């Protein structure tokens, strides 16, 4: 009976969930991060449930199958607002974000007690290359470096090193689209020498990010500035959450998220957050002076990345209502990771302060020919998707530097749907009209 006792205990564990971040699936994961009893893990090996949050484009179904098969058994899948793969037609599907935590816990319990079987393997049990019984030693190898020992070729030197002139082996891998450190949907072919990135070729752009509907309404007519600015702060805080989690600051990451979900986030709380970040050494220990954008790149990325190096590009300064609130764009002096985070925090504070002011006087925007989204200016055209500049930016960076640079850059395109649409809230009619 020892086993069943063990299983009962295991059923009460915090549910380890590996999230596959599909299109528009981010929002529910932020909520899960704040839910007790659920643990979002970084590696599929550490999970008992694969949560596919949001749709996955068909050309990435193969990658999804690979990740699915990498969970050690027993495991189950849950599809949140996502169509299960054909082979898994019977898998649990769910559209209600409020029911999600409970569903995850139930699945985990059922899995542990044996009521629910493990999800089947989707890919054939074959090595990447046949090797058994082949080659000089029966393991697929030939000579010293040849063949496919144990199914894979050996790493060879491809390119000269870009830093110190020692030409050693380089490792070429494709990363993504579901690597938890990368923006969801980004895939790239990366060559590393040691822990240094030699070359980076972006294959597919990150999934589009949905803005709150107030940004869409701002293009239709006047909207309350308070609402607009709070939405802006929320957007930045969610990105900050991601970066802080990456830096191992779980507590402040959740603080940022709580601030984002607070009904009336005050400027004082944002300032407190910034002070705590400074005090714990985030700017001195983690963010780096790497990942520097030149002026063209900064302009292309737009938004925070443009204002951090000092380009005073902000559509808000053209709006008389903003001018009445004494708005001036904040700028920093640098184009690196550090400056971008300083800029982000400063803009969060500024947005919350503007929101408070604007709420007092009930100020509305006056111009509706363009809106400054958190991602950059949007009037005649969208903020451009700019993930291909990573190809120039990341080579030469150490892995950790590269990841923190990636987290500090917001390169994803904007979704034509608003956040409320994609996460199930009633769709405001104005947006419907705009799309039609």
């Amino acid at each position, binding site marked *: 009976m020892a086993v069943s006792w063990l299983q009962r205990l295991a059923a009460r564990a915090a549910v380890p969930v590996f999230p596959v971040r599909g299109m528009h699936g981010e929002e529910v994961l932020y909520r899960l991060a704040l839910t007790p009893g659920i643990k979002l893990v970084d590696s599929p090996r550490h999970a008992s449930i694969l949560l596919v949050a949001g749709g996955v484009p068909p050309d990435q179904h193969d990658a999804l199958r690979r990740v699915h098969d990498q969970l050690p058994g027993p495991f189950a899948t849950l599809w949140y607002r996502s169509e299960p793969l054909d082979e898994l037609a019977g898998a649990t599907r769910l559209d209600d974000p409020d029911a999600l935590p409970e569903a995850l816990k139930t699945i985990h319990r059922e899995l542990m007690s044996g009521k629910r079987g493990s999800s089947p393997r989707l890919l054939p049990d074959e090595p990447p290359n046949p090797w058994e019984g082949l080659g000089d030693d029966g393991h697929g190898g030939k000579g*010293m470096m040849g063949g496919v020992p*144990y199914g894979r070729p050996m790493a060879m030197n491809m390119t000269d090193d870009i830093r110190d002139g020692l030409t050693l082996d380089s490792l070429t891998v494709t990363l993504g689209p579901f690597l938890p450190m990368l923006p969801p949907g980004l895939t790239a072919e990366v060559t590393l020498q040691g822990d240094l990135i030699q070359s980076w070729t972006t294959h597919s752009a990150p999934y589009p990010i949905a803005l709150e509907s107030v940004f869409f309404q701002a293009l239709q007519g006047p909207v309350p500035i308070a609402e607009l600015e709070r939405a802006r702060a929320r957007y930045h805080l969610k990105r900050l959450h991601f970066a802080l989690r990456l830096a191992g600051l779980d507590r402040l990451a959740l603080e940022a998220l709580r601030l984002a979900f607070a009904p009336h986030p005050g400027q004082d709380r944002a300032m407190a957050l910034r002070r705590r970040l400074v005090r714990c050494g985030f700017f001195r220990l983690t963010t780096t002076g790497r990942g520097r954008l030149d002026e063209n790149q900064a302009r292309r990325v737009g938004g925070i990345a443009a204002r951090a190096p000092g380009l005073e590009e902000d559509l808000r300064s053209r709006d008389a209502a903003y001018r009445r609130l004494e708005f001036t764009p904040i700028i920093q002096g640098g184009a690196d990771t550090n400056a971008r985070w300083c800029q982000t925090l400063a803009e969060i504070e500024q947005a919350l302060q503007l929101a408070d002011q604007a709420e007092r006087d009930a100020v509305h925007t006056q111009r509706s020919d363009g809106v400054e989204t958190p991602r950059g200016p949007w009037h005649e055209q969208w903020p451009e998707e700019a993930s291909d500049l990573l190809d120039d930016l990341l080579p030469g960076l150490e892995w950790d530097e590269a990841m923190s640079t990636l987290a500090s850059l917001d390169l994803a395109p904007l979704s034509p749907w608003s956040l409320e649409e994609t996460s199930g809230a009633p769709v405001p009619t104005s947006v419907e009209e705009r799309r039609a």
Partner: protein
Amino acid sequence: MDYPLIVDVFFVLLATLAVVSGWRVFATDSMVRASFFLLVSFIAVGVIMILLAAEYLGVAMFFMMAVEMMVMAIFMVMFMMNPAGLNPMMMVHQHKFSIAAGAAVFLVLATVALLAEFPDSPLPADLDPVASLGDELLGDSMLIFESAGIVLLTTMIGVVVLSSHRGRYGAADEGSMPPGLVPGGDPAGMPEEDDEGDGHHHCH
């Protein structure tokens, strides 16, 4: 000097471990395993030293060798083809001669050990090996101690000069790089390289 039986038992075990892992160093394909087999051999010898009452030297052997073998492993992996031994390989020359030479050395030394007469004078009972070593270092052998310090400083400077690529005066091998690798005289890896982003010299 007579040791209790348990010491003899452990000595035999450790001696076997030291020799077997010493031999495995040259018989394994994986470079990482080779260096850590050497580490095991060192640790076994270190434990024997502790059994011989050289408690400081034995333990010092652990930390010295752990660090040295770690570094050894790093360099082995860096510079050997097929470092993990995924394909079995034999990178030896004059193999038969070497085996013979090794065996000959062993035999000569073993003969010496067996035939020569050594005085039998064990450690005095009241000896504190660590303190005696300390006194020696600060007393009669001060010169060795001092010169070791200087030699080690020289070594530090030597390794930095030889191995470091970037320095105050730019890349160490500037001018010796094959042409075409770094166009425009912009050696990759200059200190405080600011132009990480422009990437014009990156290989694709």
